[in-house]
């Protein structure tokens, strides 16, 4: 069984991607516009929870994918914590100074990056690329030219990866790994053969598609219908409910009890 195949199908899988996409964009916007650390904390918690419950993947896979958030959290918050400005200095050493303000702003940024990550991953894990493009073509009239180009390019990617591996082996065989000058030549050494191969392949694929009478001007039918069903309502309720719950919790059960992070907290 391939890695990226959900073991359970949830409401979010069944929802129409053309509606799900704007929903998630709305969530992104909400997260961007969150300026209170309590809200960002609860958003991060709620969507992390939702990710584990509704992505349809086994716990270990979700955990593996979500482990990247730790890096995102650390990188986003540490810079702010160590180098941010503030008046109430807790500790300082050379250029590093940790103040109360910078500390909480750092945490705030970190929570938001976790919320972002969870939302994005939730969308990606519950949507197939084919389903997304079929929905976009049928629901919001995306030109088939772009939709099929994207789908074809997704197919070509593993081949390019395989070639990257072969090129690496070939360079090792030729002894290109040694010597100090080789690091500078890395882009050239990899780009030329891989691009040459990819361009050829893309050109052949394009010809093959046109030969199959792919013509963007003509009317076409679709193999997959992309209907709007009650699943979409369920998904809408679920996501909106999650966001509302996070905001209500932040209001009623604040952990930090701080104000707007843009001002002095």
């Amino acid at each position, binding site marked *: 069984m391939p890695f990226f195949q959900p073991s359970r199908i949830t409401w979010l899988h069944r929802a129409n991607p053309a509606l799900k996409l704007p929903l998630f964009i709305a969530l992104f916007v909400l997260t961007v516009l969150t300026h209170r650390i309590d809200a960002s904390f609860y958003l991060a918690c709620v969507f992390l929870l939702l990710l584990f419950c509704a992505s349809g993947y086994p716990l270990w896979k979700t955990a593996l994918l979500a482990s990247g958030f730790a890096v995102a959290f650390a990188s986003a918050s540490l810079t702010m914590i160590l180098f941010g400005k503030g008046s109430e200095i807790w500790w300082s050493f050379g250029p590093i100074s940790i103040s109360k303000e910078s500390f909480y702003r750092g945490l705030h940024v970190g929570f938001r990056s976790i919320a972002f990550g969870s939302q994005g991953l939730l969308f990606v894990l519950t949507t197939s690329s084919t389903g997304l493009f079929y929905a976009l073509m049928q629901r919001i009239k995306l030109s088939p030219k772009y939709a*099929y180009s994207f789908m074809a390019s997704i*197919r070509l990617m593993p081949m390019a990866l395989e070639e990257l591996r072969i090129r690496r*082996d*070939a360079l*090792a*065989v030729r*002894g290109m790994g040694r010597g100090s000058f080789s690091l500078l030549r890395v882009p050239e050494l990899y780009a030329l053969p891989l691009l040459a191969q990819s361009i050829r392949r893309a050109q052949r*694929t394009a010809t093959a598609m046109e030969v199959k009478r792919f013509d963007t001007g*003509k009317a076409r039918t*679709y193999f997959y219908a992309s209907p709007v069903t009650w699943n979409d309502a369920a998904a809408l309720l679920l996501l909106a409910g999650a966001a509302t719950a996070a905001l209500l919790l932040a209001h009623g059960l604040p952990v930090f009890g701080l104000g707007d992070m843009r001002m002095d907290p």
Partner: protein
Amino acid sequence: MESRIESPLHASRTLTAPPIAAEVRNLRLKFPGSPELLFRDLSLQIRQGEKVLLLGPSGCGKSTLLQVLGGIIPRVNEVPLKADKLIVPYSTGIVFQDPDTQFCMPYVDEELAFVLENLAVPRAEMPRRIEQALREVGLNLPDAHVPIGSLSQGMKQRLALASALLLEPDTLLLDEPSALLDPEGRRVIWEAVRAVSDRRTVIIVEHRVEEVLHWADRVVLFAADGSILADDAPERIFERYRAEMLRYGIWYPQAWNDAYGSEQRSTAEAPPSRIARTLSGQADTPNEPTALETWSGSGSGKSAVSAEAIQPVASAVSAPSYAYAPSASASGEAAAVSASPDRAEPLLRLDDFRVLRGGKTVCAAASAAAYPGDLIALTGPNGAGKSSLLLGLMGLLPHEGSCECAGGRPSGRKQLREAAAKHAAFVFQNPEFQFVTNRVLDEVLFTLRSEAEAALRAPRGGGFAGWLAPRRRARLDAVAEAELLRQSEACLERFGLGDYAERHPYLLSLGQKRRLSVASAIVSDKPLLLLDEPTFGQDARNAFAILDLCERLRASGHAVLMITHEMEIAERLATQIWTVEQGKLSSVWQTARSRDDELRLSEGGRG
């Protein structure tokens, strides 16, 4: 652009012969940027229902003509052309050469549905027509929703045929559909084509004609300049133009016999049935030292002499063959060693050798060895682990167990990689991936220079310095540089690339690229050469040229280990056949050919 494109329905009103399916009259065509016309006043007429095979040397324009006849040029690919008359079929379906680049969707059913969508077929009708198309080409999938990536190459080509059929074409165009398939894939794709082609016009461009010949009505033979040399029934073409076909590199049924002679096999070789049995994996003992003892008992000193006579240029570059045999004392496996005492040391000896990928064993070799003078055919089904074995031998994949390389026994992966880099040359399937410079000459020079620099860095007296010693004490001063340059030029000359020294490697032809990749791998005269399907997808001329190269190296005391699906190589040239099945080296079979056997070159390579 003065071409007139007519529909065939109006084009021909003659009632006696079948109507014309496609016609060009006085076609002139030139690719932008190329100095010469590809076609000069070419005329060809194809009637409906005809099965026409277009043959000719590489680069003569067959595929381009096919695209003109199929209406791809100029409709899809814009190439300037001019013709007094151009009739293209009303509807065409095309199958191209490369199985991996004909699809745009991830799943089989989606790909076929893509065609139906383009034709605006209602959704309700799609599953039925998809199923029918798959059945027609003999792809019996229980569920059509399978990833295309999980199909074999032969199945992918049948899928391409199925999607062509969904267009309900009256003309099928096939642009070398079997060139990149193994023998089994070739057989089934042609079976499928035959099954669907009964009343359709079929125009085929192909280099491998064994499977096509007996049902083609007509063969059009092109000369190298793009003119039509002959246009006749297949039997007559093959009677009269066999010499041309050999020269053009067409894989006609007797190509192997004409190149290597039919009598050789019967005098020297093991019964083919035996080999076939070994290759199909049944019941041979894994190692057969007795066969070796029987066959290689005589004349072991001979080959070094003959090698020097044959390869004057090579001998300037390389040391005599027995210089490779390291001085380390022999160990174990006395049976094989006793057969030819003066070259007793194997260049490569595997003992319980396992190649790992992601922690799992992908290829295990219990016991096998390669000696100077060996040409080993490594065969087996796709995905069995052949390539992994070679990568493991080069130290590019982790391994367990023992791999003895020219007397040394490197322990870890890094040590094996270093030992392999010293003793073995590796030629990848796609030569382009191996090129690291921007000039053909530099490509060869690069190998020599990095070897020389490595030798300089190597601590004296330790490790393999003793092996490198007789060649040169490399100091990269002006004198040494000049010497390397001279060697590189001599090497290019020897590989027939002397005129292209200043070119970019990517601008060479397919056969030249392949020769260059071999040249740059072996120029520093490593005793062991590993090749990954060197003849795959090549026309006969290029394939024989590569085989001649390998054979010359073999006869001069190198060992050659090549992955191949070509049974003829195994039967005619190999001294050993290694079969890999399901991640295991399941049999090591000594053929009747001995390591001291004289040079066996193809017809074209003897001159």
